[in-house]
């Protein structure tokens, strides 16, 4: 939000570039990506000589590479790509490659303001993370999921710290080979498995879902396991806006799921499934996607269910900034829907992208697809159809929407008043 205050919210329409014409300049042009403020549109392109580069608003990066993939704009508008030269890989940021090169690089992540950029790395069959061009001092046998604190000061990853030879089944389950590394430093405790993890908002704590042996699942925080063991758990999240370290995770016991905080159940309700728990920004409300019965999906807020259920899928659970409203995407009888506070929009779609709330929470908008055409729907009302469109951004005062779209091969940045929906 703070970044978007600096954006141009006055120019109603701007033709930024014409990506359809790039095909005349390059041998191949991949799908376009747009920057967060809408001022840039970019694609990976291949030159006639077989080299790759990025084309941004019609201009190619100066450097070319043997290969390139994973084009991504960061929150601050910088454009990154994973690139290779002479068999080595690195990250290029706005066309400039990092000094450090690796045997392989993948899974780019940004912190909240985009100033910290991280990738997973492999060098000499050892694995780790590089943050802003600096590889961790320690490397590991392998690496799994990794997360970064919002301020970008810390990175935590699931890592395989102990080598394992083929078919060493008892070593794997009895002694364990995985742990968590925080900024490259591994916890002492070794687990059979480590999967999803989260950093507390203040960066002081890390929690991870772990398995000890083949049957005991729990959450480990800062290297210490909850005393409680479960049949299964899913990835934890920390409660925000509190000085306490409160790791919250779905846990399964006797065939039913519920939510636990620091090992203790917080909801009386039990479900066939419960996952993707999320706190309101103020940390006061806790919601999760749940299946109250087999094949029926909905959302529970503080343990209470939405009245409507959906028979295929619910995902992308999102609180409004003030925490008063909650939206999610649902799939029911083959149709995708936007559901806000338990009520689906009347329209059904072929696909819906994650909900976006206005700053005051009064409006919800999203990219939607129907019949091969894309638009933005705001409180259920569609804008015009486009060849391509990106998820909307509300202006800080909530009165306008940044619409980034491609029509007739041209990429436009528009500021559309909410009243036009």
């Amino acid at each position, binding site marked *: 939000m703070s970044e978007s205050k600096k954006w141009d919210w006055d120019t109603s329409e701007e033709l930024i570039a014409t990506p359809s014409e790039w095909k005349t300049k390059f041998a*191949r042009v991949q799908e376009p990506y747009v920057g967060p403020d809408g001022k840039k549109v970019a694609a990976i392109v291949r030159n006639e000589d077989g080299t790759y580069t990025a084309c941004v608003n019609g201009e190619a990066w100066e450097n070319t590479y043997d290969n390139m993939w994973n084009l991504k704009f960061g929150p601050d508008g910088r454009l990154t790509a994973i690139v290779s030269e002479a068999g080595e890989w690195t990250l290029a940021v706005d066309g400039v490659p990092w000094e450090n090169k690796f*045997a392989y690089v*993948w899974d780019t992540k940004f912190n909240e303001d985009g100033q910290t950029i991280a990738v997973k790395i492999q060098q000499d069959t050892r694995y780790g993370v590089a943050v802003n061009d600096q590889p961790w001092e320690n490397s590991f046998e392998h690496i799994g999921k990794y997360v970064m604190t919002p301020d970008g000061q810390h990175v935590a990853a699931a890592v395989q710290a102990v080598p394992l030879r083929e*078919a060493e089944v008892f070593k794997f389950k009895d002694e364990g080979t*995985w742990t968590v590394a925080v900024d490259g430093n591994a916890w002492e405790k070794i687990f059979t498995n480590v999967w999803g993890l989260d950093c507390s908002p203040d960066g002081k704590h890390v929690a991870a879902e772990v398995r000890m042996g083949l049957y005991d699942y729990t959450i480990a925080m800062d290297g210490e396991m909850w005393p409680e063991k479960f049949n299964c758990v899913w990835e934890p999240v920390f409660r925000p806006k509190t000085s306490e370290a409160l790791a919250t995770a779905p846990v399964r016991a006797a065939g039913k799921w519920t939510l636990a905080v620091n090992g203790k159940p917080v909801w009386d309700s039990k479900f066939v*499934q419960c996952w993707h728990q999320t706190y309101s920004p103020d940390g006061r409300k806790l919601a999760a996607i749940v299946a109250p019965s087999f094949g029926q999906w909905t959302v529970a807020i503080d343990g209470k269910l939405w009245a409507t259920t959906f*028979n295929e899928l619910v995902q992308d659970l999102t609180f409004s900034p003030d925490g008063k409203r909650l939206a999610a995407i649902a799939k029911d009888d083959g149709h995708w829907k936007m559901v806000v506070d338990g009520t689906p929009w009347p329209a059904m779609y072929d696909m819906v992208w994650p909900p976006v709330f206005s700053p005051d929470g009064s409006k919800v908008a999203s990219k939607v697809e129907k019949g091969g055409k894309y638009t933005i729907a705001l409180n259920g009302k569609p804008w015009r159809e486009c060849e391509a469109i990106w998820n909307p951004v509300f202006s800080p005062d909530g009165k306008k929407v940044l619409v980034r779209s491609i029509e007739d091969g041209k990429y436009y940045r528009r500021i559309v008043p909410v009243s036009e929906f």
Partner: protein
Amino acid sequence: MAVPATKLKEKKEIIDVGLEEGAARLTYEKIEQVINRVITGEMAARMKVYVDTCIHCGMCSTACHYYLSHGTPEWAPVGKVKQTMWEILEKKGKVSPEFIKRASIIASTECNVCRRCSMYCPYGIDIAYIMATVRRICHLLGVTPQYIQDTAHSHSATMNQMWVKEDEWIDTLQWQEGEAQAELPSLRIALDKEGADIMYSVIGPEPKFRAQLIYQAAILMTAAGVDWTMPAGPGWDNSDMAMFTGDFEIMGRVKRTHFEAAANLRVKKIVMGECGHAFRSVYDVGNRWLGWKMPPIPVIHATQFYYELLKEGKIKIARKLKEPVTLHDPCNIVRGRGLHEMMRYLVNATCENFVEMYPNREQNHCCCAGGGVINCGPPWKTKRVESNSIKAEQLAATGVHICIAPCHNCHGGLDDIINTYKLNMHTMFFIDVLMKTMEIPDSLKA
């Protein structure tokens, strides 16, 4: 009836460290406790119905390729249930470590959970479910064959079955993309392309041993003009040996990763490669353990995808294979999904001379590799091959040299049978056939 396999080689005890070490750690108390926990906490009402309904008629016997190959009652499905679940229930879990070891051997290496026997049972009892529950008990007791246990560990650590590391996966795709671009310059294996129509998923052995299948899939997708993508991270592997060891918690984790990869990519559909057991795990078992009645993102097997592409005219056949071919119907997509007529459409569209094997369609004999049996590894290979002499006879009777089998486990199992029984055949996937027969538009060629 086939020549009893015991005539091929003398029997010898098979030593599997997973079973030996696992059983050595057991106590009677632990066994009883775990079994009763499963009986009271996990066994569905259907188990009681099955056990109460079975009239011990033995009609299931001649359904089973083990029985048809060995010819003695202990190999019959009902014989295997008698030696395992009936005993477990009758004794209320008071069974010995040696019993559990033997139960694990029966459930994991003498049954492919192929479900042919259910069709022969007058009451339709799902004997595969009973054997899978025996595996579940053995898993919870830590008595599982070593190699399939290692595969389940791979699933748990990497979300794929072959310990393929994340960079190795992406590197393999880029390698195959580069190779295939020499043939079709515009070809691209798009990684993590959000909003593509299709997510294509494969099984662990493809990047590990059969990377040409990814190459061929990319050729097919390009020729058909399909908007497709593959996940760059975990979720690309649709297979699931944890389902077959009875580690349902890992099975669920693997399936969740697969479906959420597709959901996050906003694809309309998942197309999976030519694998049978993986189809069972995404379409039937794993999705349901998670609470989804059906796959949350529609999943179709590669054979159905090829069928639809042909019917819609998105790919065309330029020439047919002249050599006679036969078709092996994989259990999990025929008895499990009914794709047999679509497969025959494919064979007839691409081959001039199709020779049916008998029995066929949902009556077809299993390859004896599926259900995790081949994944129990080298110690069990000879027994597995000897236990399917009926399949060797069935294949030999076709008199052809090419067997199309749209399933990875079937390929492994059939190749072993073909080699052991010297059948002078070779196996092909449908994608192999399509690569020889389909039209590649000139506009796409280098």
